[in-house]
């Protein structure tokens, strides 16, 4: 019963409206349920983090950054497989994200196939 109640939701956290729309559209095209948030704070407030099977987050955002969100979720024992998308990722940031448990670190513009593979993998885990 408990596992069935957990909807396999994909959460998108990005402050850029165009990017949110694009990611939502892509997931809709492949038939995955997605919910988009404009900030990490909005996502945390929604309470949906416990029903989220995969998180797609921007790194640099006003307020809480993507990495801070990941750390916060980890500290709340609510680790979610996370795919980071950033406009300009450097090696150091990438290492930091992957060490903290990120499944993938993509730089815009990214290959949608790689993104979807990672999302599917996260949902199946």
């Amino acid at each position: 019963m408990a596992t069935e109640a957990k909807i396999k939701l994909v959460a998108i956290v990005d402050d850029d409206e165009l990017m949110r729309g694009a990611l939502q559209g892509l997931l809709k095209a492949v038939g995955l349920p997605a919910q988009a948030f404009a900030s990490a704070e909005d996502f945390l407030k929604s309470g949906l983090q416990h029903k989220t099977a995969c998180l797609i987050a921007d790194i640099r955002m006003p307020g809480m950054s993507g990495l801070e969100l990941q750390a916060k979720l980890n500290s709340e024992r609510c680790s979610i497989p996370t795919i980071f998308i950033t406009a300009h990722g450097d090696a150091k940031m990438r290492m930091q994200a992957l060490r903290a448990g990120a499944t993938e670190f993509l730089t815009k513009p990214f290959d949608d196939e790689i993104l979807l593979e990672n999302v599917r993998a996260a949902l199946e885990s």
Partner: protein
Amino acid sequence: MGLAHLFLYFHLPQPFAAFALSAIAITFWYGGTKPGIVATVLASIIRYTQWAEASSAVSRALYDLVFVIFALLMMGVNRARGELEVSVAQRTADLTRANEELNLEIAERKRAEEKLRQSEAYLAEAQRLTHTGSWVWEVDGRDVLHLSDEWYRIYGFDPAEGMPAWEKRLQRIHPDDQAKWQTAIERAINEHSEYEVEFRLLLPGGVVRHLYTVGHPVEDGSGKLVRFVGSSTDVTERKQAEEALRQAQADLARISRVTTMGELTASLAHEVNQPIGAAVTDANTCLRWLNREHPDLEEARQAASRVVKDATRAAEVINRTRLLFKKGTPQSELVDMNEVVREMLALTVGDMSRRSIAVRLELAEDLPQITGDHVQLQQVLMNLMVNGIDAMKDSDGTRELAIHSQRADDHQVKVTISDTGMGLPPRHEDKIFHAFFTTKPNGTGMGLRISRSIIEAHGGRLWASDNSPRGACFHLTLPIRADSRE
């Protein structure tokens, strides 16, 4: 004859009488009054001793009387002569004094003339040094009354050929400026007013000179305008220097703009990458809807329209950026400062959001337009905003960039940009506007300097003050163009 008869009548010897009277007269004339009296007494004694018996007592008494009267007469003559001599001496003294005064006056005049010649020489020298020629011309007939040497040199006329006629002078003025020059003078004549006009000369041989002329009207006692007195200054060198300076400033401003943009490259890359990334994803999504066994055209259409939106935004960012790099001469156009604020905000807002800087906009809705160079004003705004953002880099607590626009007094528009950063360096509030003064490790120290020169070139002011409770405010004012004030 009468006197001889008288002497004969009294039986006096005529030769003696003549001699005695002559002697008395001569003694009086040359010896003076006292010797004259002695001579008279002596004559009486001689007459008495020589001719005492030959005459009667009556004639002797008369004889003495004649001597006495004669002596008195001579005394009178002597006194009159003395007075005459005194008055002659006085007259002579007066004349001498007058002569001395005249001599002094002549010397004075010579000195004054020398001084005048010297001051004329100094004036000519000053005219030569300042390239300023002086002139006077009559309103009636436009006849010239005076033209200085420097005027001849500037206009390229030979003083030996005499004063050139009005028509000849007019011919030296650049054809494009003749109308402007004549209009200025006609108006001054009609209004009896001063005039100043800047125009060019086109000399034989094609040399162009820039002139600045000031004229002053002179009226006669009845208020009739009789002539104009004035000067013409050759400002060609100044004009060229100004032009070179303007060019240098424009180049420097552009370099600074490029530097500022360099500092923003990361932000701009993000700004462009963002919509391009979205466009790629949206395009892929669109293909996915189309590539299905049963293509979903409605979903594909939605994805495609998102691609259009994404690409449009990428293009907008690039257009704004290109404008900032553009090299061009300063333009004079109508500029809405609110629009400039929004444009520059669009370029920096991404950078600010990543640095967790909040933006507060308080833009007056009825802000009048000003006249100026859109790109230059963008640069100033950009500079001030980037400065504000940089100042908050290491600041804890509130990070807020506030931009406020309003219509200020005295027909001005005022824009204030406030940050909550480290604030102005204490005691260096105005030094920040000096060239090469910088608090940034990689700063050029030119940003604020150039911003201020741009604002001042627009007739406005740029200054800084402390923000409360912390940070800095930059204020700029710009004059509203004359015909949009009301």
